[in-house]
């Protein structure tokens, strides 16, 4: 494991140079932040509040090392933060209706040795899980859209607002399709074993679609996707507003 991690670091340094360091340390940083989050939750701090506070830190860790342009950074950060807020609201609703918290019969092997009455709220932990697993995808989409659209503004400073909006959405469409692939295949990879389990034990359709693990995994996938779509529209809207401000400011200067 350690050797593989070192291999990754070397590969990053060869391919990305100095930025490789930044990427690697942001990953290490995210890992540490997550450990802190887990320990705080285990120490009975409210999972929702801990998640909100630390997620803000994670957003900066996910965005700042990955782009140099100031405008892109700002747009991506604002978009991701607002979108995470909306995703938090969505997950609160979804977890309430899906009862997808905690552990399921399929986990018995792993958890039978434990006391499960541990006075920490697992529905709230489930909200944290869903929000954090959407964070990466939302940050990626916001960075990609903002860097693409600001690029257009740079090369065509006189582009009209409606054209800019259309161009931004065209970039967004491509991102939606590809990030859906990333999420979907990630899902396939993570839940291959669960699928094999379902088939080996002849689960009925009703049982599969009411299974806590399966339902929460699919909901995670879909909420991340909704977050990506939202981030794309939000980033475009935000850039239009920023640009309007810039233009009026420049007009006043002249």
């Amino acid at each position, binding site marked *: *494991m350690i*050797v*593989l991690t070192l*291999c*990754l670091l070397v590969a*990053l340094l060869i*391919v*990305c*140079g100095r*930025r490789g360091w930044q990427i690697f340390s942001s*990953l290490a940083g*995210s890992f540490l932040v*997550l450990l802190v989050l*887990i320990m705080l939750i*285990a120490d009975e701090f409210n999972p929702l509040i801990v998640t909100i506070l630390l997620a803000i830190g994670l957003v900066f860790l*996910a965005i700042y090392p*990955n782009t140099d342009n100031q405008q892109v950074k700002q747009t991506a950060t604002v978009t991701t933060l607002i979108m995470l807020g909306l995703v938090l609201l969505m997950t609160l609703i979804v977890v309430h209706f*899906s*009862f997808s*918290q*905690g*552990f*399921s019969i399929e986990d018995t092997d792993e*958890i039978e040795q*434990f*006391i*499960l*009455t*541990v006075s920490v709220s697992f529905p709230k*932990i489930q909200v944290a899980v*869903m*929000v*954090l697993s959407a964070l*990466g*995808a939302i*940050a*990626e989409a916001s960075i*990609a859209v903002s860097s693409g659209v600001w690029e257009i503004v740079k090369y065509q400073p006189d582009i009209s607002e409606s054209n800019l909006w259309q161009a931004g959405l065209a970039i967004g*469409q491509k991102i*939606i*399709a590809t990030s*859906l*692939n990333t*999420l979907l*295949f*990630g899902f396939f*990879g*993570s839940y291959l*074993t*669960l*699928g*094999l389990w379902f088939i080996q034990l002849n689960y009925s*359709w*009703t049982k599969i*679609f009411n*299974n806590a693990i399966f*339902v929460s995994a699919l*909901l*995670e996938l*879909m909420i991340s996707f909704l977050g990506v779509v939202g981030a794309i529209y939000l980033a475009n809207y935000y850039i239009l507003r920023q640009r309007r401000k810039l233009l009026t400011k420049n007009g006043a200067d002249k």
Partner: protein
Amino acid sequence: MNKQYKRYGLLGILLLCLIGGLFYYRSMRTENIAIVQKVKVIQKEQLQESYQNDDMMITQKLTVKIISGHFKGQQHVFKNTYYQSQANSNRYFVHSKILLNNPKAKKSLAIIGPKRDGILVFTFLLIILIVLFFLHKAGLKTLISVAINWLLFIGALLLATRWHNQHILCITIILAIILSLATLILVFGYSRQTLIALLSTLISTFSALLFSVLVLQLTNNQGIHFETMDYGIQPFELIFLAETLLGVLGAVMDETSDITASLYQLLQEKPNLAPAQLRQSGMNVGQEIIGPLINILFYIFLAELIPIVVLYLRNGNTLFFSLSRTMTLGYTQTIISALGIVLAVPVTSFLASFLLRGEQA
């Protein structure tokens, strides 16, 4: 523009009615469903367990109305006991839907569990509507590609189980090739870009995997606990590799198609670029997306750790022990995926700088 909105909006509503209707019809025909009408807490008991875990055991009296099956239209009363932490029990609310068993006599009715598929279908339909309404043709294409991927995935699972998981790695490799081909053809059509993206996806994914297997062999899988595989499904190592392969494929495809598309566009604008320059721009595009792509997989991996590690910690385990029992497989998979993502950048730039020019000549 307006016509498009109408056409795809209509298609979305049609799909919505069809899927929603089918789902509703199937649930009402085959399941015993009840809706909670009244909830009353009848007992609360403070629990004192070891490691300073105090929890509350709560018993609620649920008055439900049965809405499908044998006892449709009748009322019934259940007792439901749950713990405040709800690690493996559920607290029901008014309007919650519950699945019941299917007995002959009413008095042996019992709760199987909450009905979870309603919110699942609702979210799914919401996505279909949004995708079709906002993305039109691209949205439809995306939905078709997702549907194809799902069918292939399920088919491969069925095949693998039929052979008792013995050939799982072989099946997954073939699945991976077919999935990338199908997905990339939907993105680029039948063209040289598809070829480049496909080749570089497969080369970087498989070489990352091979390289990692080699490293793991040389270090004797030091630190990895294969026996912590979910649900203890055998054979550990092969399934581990199969999972990793599928998990990284999407991200690498993302990347290779992104780099290929930008280089293609660049070559359209400046047909006289030398291969070396083309390669350099490919590297530049790639360096921008490596970080965010690794992040997507990394955060998913991290988030899934939270509940189980919290449970370990609350049961008096040390952080180090908890992590070693829960994260070694996921961590290794994420690192291998990240390696694939990094490798894809030079591989794609190299292949594209040669093969893309061939199309021009």
